[in-house]
């Protein structure tokens, strides 16, 4: 077998690497690198032509320097030169350099593509593979344009070598992912599918990834792959452990290929053809049987490979969800793994069982493992395993075991890792509500939650308990009694004070008969906590006090005294002061009747989906990473959601029955316009909403004109939002290139199916800007989840229309179709230019030919505030030049629009006056209309 000596072939490289390794300090390393860079630069610039070997060596050194984290700004040309060498080692270094340092320099791309083209047609399999690997690694739009039609040909040609086929299949996959519009399978489809029959297992292994991806997008065209995959799988599964020779891994025949085949089948429903289905079920049974056989090797590699197949088979069984027998067997198998000594297996079994729990066929079987799972929650060392155990307990919970599971989770909470406490709290709160038979148990559970993990009890949780207590009069007395008792504790969590204050304010009368909890006792108890609380809680307590005045007239004077005290009525916090003043006044001047009407008991809340459930989904959603970014954008967009003003929550309490509640009177955020879209999946829950019928009427062609205009001067924010979907944007531009991140947030609790987005350029825009879709959005967007998409944009020449983004998805069966203007405007490619007054007017005069000049007078729609206007002009991307125009009222800007083909200098002068504003601008090129469009936003 080959043994490679250190850096053989390139001594200079090995010496250089050694030198770097011997550097004692970062400074010494930088010094050595700079020396080397100078040396290489002089060699590349020298008069003597370098031979291939030297070129390869220097390019390789540059690559090494780059990989150490230093910028490399030369050597690209030399690397490209290496591509046309006919020596493998030189070519390889050239391709490697290109693959690692992808550069969008258009000159080079053409040369690189040329070299690739030559290698692809060279009939030399080694060179062909190098070229294909380069395409697969870079995967740029330009490469797709150049090679997308050539590669399928190579893939299916009869005389193509196996190794080339493998590379061609995956290369095509990469191009399909970056530029699906350019990869047209049509005529090749059937031949590609038949690669599943290829004699060479490596070809099948590679091709199946391509087929799986294509099947997901075009299931019908590729559905013949199902029977081929089943028969291939069947041959592997039934083969003896030595049959497949090279493809046997630790006595397991072709484990990776088996997994890929099983995964491909998960793109389709169970086979309709009885024979195919029978054969597949047989395979699945064999796989389950093999798991019971004694291992052929003690090595962990053997069991891992075997179990990789087993878990994939179980995934398929769960996916089909139609074979009770297999589902139960799968469950039993996983049950054995729950107690396995390998942590990996316990983890995977818990994870896999979670999905089994949701199948009606295996739910009961999963439940039999409850004790083991509870034990795992208590004893596992790895927090991620405990997390899976908690997930599984949550998934297997139903009415029969809810009390046990909730109790276990509560006791686990006392010692749970901080990282998972909040999620645990949400889960307990949801289960307690969902399976509450008597609501006193529910109230106890939530109060326990606050006691045990008060810091992790979010607003949603305590809002919810109040909502439920208000809606169910059979539990109100119990709730009042329980919170009263809980508040007796010398130190209780602030969330407990909130709940206590609210509930006693509403229902304190229900326990006032007992002298131990007489009105004054209640009040004194609440007020004893007052000084330790934060402002929002104090505000809530003040509202509770005014409610007390209504409930118990005998407390009036005591409470008025409290309200009148300087610490309330002169409180430095505006909210507290206002409440104190208003409540005091209200209690002194309003008649008992008026007081009773204003402060009447809260009406029941409209029933809708638990906000806790929505929160949990959001927490678990796949978009977690970018949520904060989107929220940041949201803030910039100035679209604050109502209800985030905590202080305002309690205002509602006093104003609950006022005839026209202000938007802020939306207590607990629960009475806002109910989201039409929030369908509730959990039918068992009492308070879960009932809006699930049909989604809203399918909107279409909703063009976001005002949303669009807001983005002329800024790059981040919320582009669009309706009841179902929120689309956030982050974008950045440099010269003629731009990158736009789109965040699609599913605001509902139901998944969006067939979610697709397409960007199109209306009219001749295509020839002005270029788009490259970086990655697709997954076709399923889970409820509460957020997905991200990246668009690369290149400005070729100036343009005026905006590209369109079309979004289609299914929501509850109805197809939603939405078209938005993407905020890509010509000013995004502005680069500010600073210039002095003299230069400005000199150029201004030079550019005074009619076609170079444009002038427009328009009325200002908004106030002409200097700072606002300045900010907008800067947002436009130009440089705002001070002290240039002799008239200080005027604004003068300069910038260069960077397009691929040319650079267009723009000078802009804005002459506002009180009635109208005059705008004149001049530039080297005629595209007046574009500018007119832009400036209309001012």
């Amino acid at each position, binding site marked *: *077998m*080959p*043994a*490679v000596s*250190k*850096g053989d072939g390139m001594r200079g490289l090995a010496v250089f*690497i050694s030198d770097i*390794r011997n550097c004692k300090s970062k400074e010494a390393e930088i010094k050595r690198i700079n020396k080397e860079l100078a040396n290489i630069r002089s060699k590349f610039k020298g008069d003597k032509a370098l031979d291939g070997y030297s070129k390869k060596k220097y390019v390789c050194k540059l*690559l090494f320097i780059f*990989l150490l*984290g230093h910028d490399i700004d030369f050597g690209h040309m030399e690397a490209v030169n290496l591509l046309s060498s006919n*020596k*493998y*080692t030189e070519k*390889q*270094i050239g391709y*490697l350099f290109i693959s690692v340092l992808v550069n969008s320099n258009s000159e080079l791309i053409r040369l690189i593509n040329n070299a690739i083209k030559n290698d692809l047609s060279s009939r030399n399999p*080694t060179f062909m593979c190098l070229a294909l*690997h380069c395409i697969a*690694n870079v995967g740029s739009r330009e490469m797709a344009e150049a090679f997308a039609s050539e590669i399928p040909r190579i893939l299916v040609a009869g005389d193509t070598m196996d190794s080339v086929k*493998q*590379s061609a299949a*995956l290369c095509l*996959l990469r191009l399909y*992912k970056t530029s699906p519009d350019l990869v047209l399978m049509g005529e090749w489809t059937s031949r590609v599918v038949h690669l599943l029959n290829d004699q060479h*297992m*490596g070809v099948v*292994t*590679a091709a199946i*990834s391509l087929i799986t991806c294509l099947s*997901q*997008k075009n299931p019908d065209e590729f559905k013949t792959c199902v029977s081929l995959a089943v028969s291939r799988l069947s041959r592997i599964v039934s083969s003896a452990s030595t049959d497949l020779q*090279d*493809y046997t*891994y630790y006595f397991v025949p072709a*484990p*990776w290929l088996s997994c890929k085949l099983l995964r491909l089948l*998960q*793109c389709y*429903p169970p086979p309709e053809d009885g024979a195919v289905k029978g054969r597949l079920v047989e395979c699945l049974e064999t796989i389950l049987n093999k798991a019971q056989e004694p291992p052929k090797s003690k090595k962990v*590699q053997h069991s*891992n*490979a075997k*179990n*990789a197949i087993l878990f*994939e088979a179980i995934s398929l069984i769960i996916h089909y969800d139609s074979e009770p027998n297999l589902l139960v067997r799968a469950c039993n198998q996983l049950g054995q793994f729950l107690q396995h000594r390998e*942590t*990996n297996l316990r*983890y*995977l079994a818990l994870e896999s069982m979670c999905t089994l729990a949701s199948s009606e066929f295996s739910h009961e079987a999963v439940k039999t493992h409850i004790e083991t799972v509870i034990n795992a929650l208590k004893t596992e060392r*790895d927090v*991620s395993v405990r997390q899976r155990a908690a997930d599984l307990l949550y998934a297997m919970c139903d009415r029969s075991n809810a009390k046990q599971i909730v109790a276990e989770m509560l006791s686990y909470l006392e010692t749970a890792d901080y990282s998972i406490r909040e999620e645990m709290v949400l889960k307990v709160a949801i289960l307690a509500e969902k399976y509450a038979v008597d609501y006193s148990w529910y109230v106890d559970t939530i109060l326990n939650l606050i006691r045990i993990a008060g810091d992790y009890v979010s607003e949603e949780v305590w809002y919810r308990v109040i909502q439920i207590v208000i809606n169910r009069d059979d539990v109100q007395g119990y709730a009042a009694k329980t919170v009263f008792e809980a508040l007796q504790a010398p130190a209780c969590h602030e969330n407990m004070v909130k709940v206590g204050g609210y509930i006693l304010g509403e229902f304190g009368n229900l326990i006032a008969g007992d002298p131990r909890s007489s009105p004054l006792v209640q009040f004194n108890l609440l007020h004893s906590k007052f000084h330790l609380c934060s402002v929002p809680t104090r505000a809530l307590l003040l509202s509770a006090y005014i409610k007390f005045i209504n409930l118990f007239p005998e407390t009036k004077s005591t409470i008025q005294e409290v309200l009148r005290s300087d610490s309330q009525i002169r409180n430095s916090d505006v909210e507290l002061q206002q409440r104190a003043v208003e409540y005091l006044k209200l209690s002194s001047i309003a008649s008992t009747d008026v007081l009773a009407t204003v402060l009447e008991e809260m009406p029941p809340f409209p029933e809708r989906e638990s906000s806790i459930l929505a929160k949990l989904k959001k927490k678990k959603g*796949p*978009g977690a*990473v970018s949520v904060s970014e989107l929220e940041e954008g949201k803030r910039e967009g100035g679209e604050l959601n109502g209800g985030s003003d905590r202080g305002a929550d309690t205002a509602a309490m006093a104003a609950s029955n006022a005839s026209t509640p202000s938007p802020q009177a939306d207590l607990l955020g629960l009475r806002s316009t109910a989201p039409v879209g929030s369908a509730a999946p959990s039918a068992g829950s009492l308070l879960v909403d009932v809006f699930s019928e049909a989604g809203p009427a399918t909107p279409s062609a909703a063009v976001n004109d005002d949303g669009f205009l807001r983005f002329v001067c800024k790059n981040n924010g919320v582009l669009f939002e309706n009841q179902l979907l929120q689309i956030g944007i982050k974008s950045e531009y440099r010269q003629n290139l731009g990158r736009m991140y789109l965040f699609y947030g599913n605001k509902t609790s139901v998944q969006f199916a067939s979610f697709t987005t397409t960007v199109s350029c209306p009219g001749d825009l295509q020839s002005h800007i270029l788009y490259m879709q*970086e*990655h*697709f959005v997954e*076709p*399923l967007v889970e409820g509460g989840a957020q997905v991200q998409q990246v668009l690369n944009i290149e400005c070729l020449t100036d343009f005026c229309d905006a590209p369109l983004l079309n979004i289609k998805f299914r929501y509850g069966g109805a197809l939603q179709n939405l078209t938005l203007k993407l905020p890509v405007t010509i000013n995004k490619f502005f680069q500010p230019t600073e210039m002095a007054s003299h230069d400005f007017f000199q150029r201004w005069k030079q550019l005074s030919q009619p076609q170079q000049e444009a002038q427009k007078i328009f009325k200002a729609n908004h106030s002409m505030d200097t700072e606002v206007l300045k900010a907008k002009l800067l947002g436009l991307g130009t440089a705002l030049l001070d002290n240039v125009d002799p008239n200080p009222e005027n604004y003068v800007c300069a910038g260069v629009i960077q397009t691929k083909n040319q650079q267009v200098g723009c000078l802009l002068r804005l002459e506002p006056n009180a009635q109208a504003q005059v705008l004149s601008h001049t530039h080297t090129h005629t595209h007046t209309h574009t500018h007119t469009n832009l400036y209309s936003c001012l």
Partner: protein
Amino acid sequence: QRFKGLGITIRFILIQNRAGKTRLAKWYMQFDDDEKQKLIEEVHAVVTVRDAKHTNFVEFRNFKIIYRRYAGLYFCICVDVTDNNLAYLEGIHNFVEVLNEYFHNVCELDLVFNFYKVYTVVDEMFLAGEIRETSQTKVLKQLLMLQSLE
């Protein structure tokens, strides 16, 4: 219908030593340089705190890292959360066995001095974020052939 995610399966492959020095970084998704650096540091932080009793899987952002430690080196593969953990775990081992054979008892220094060859090994076994070839015999035969070329 539940579908497995469509997209690049492997997001990146990293080989790092315990000190956090990167010995190989292969990216199958577009990241800018700052993002790459951040990912490298995060992976190192996440993986090195775990011990032998922990699983070989860690949730990581919206993905998961499947990793295995060999002496002082961590081999990490970042994949989709729905991907098959054990298949990638053994994918790593298969790759390590090939490196071991190719470099004759591979050690960290081999990866440093022959970094450009390591890329070739990776491309033979993983391409476009997918598993390309799993047979050690076939891969080594191909590498031997390439080795003999000038």
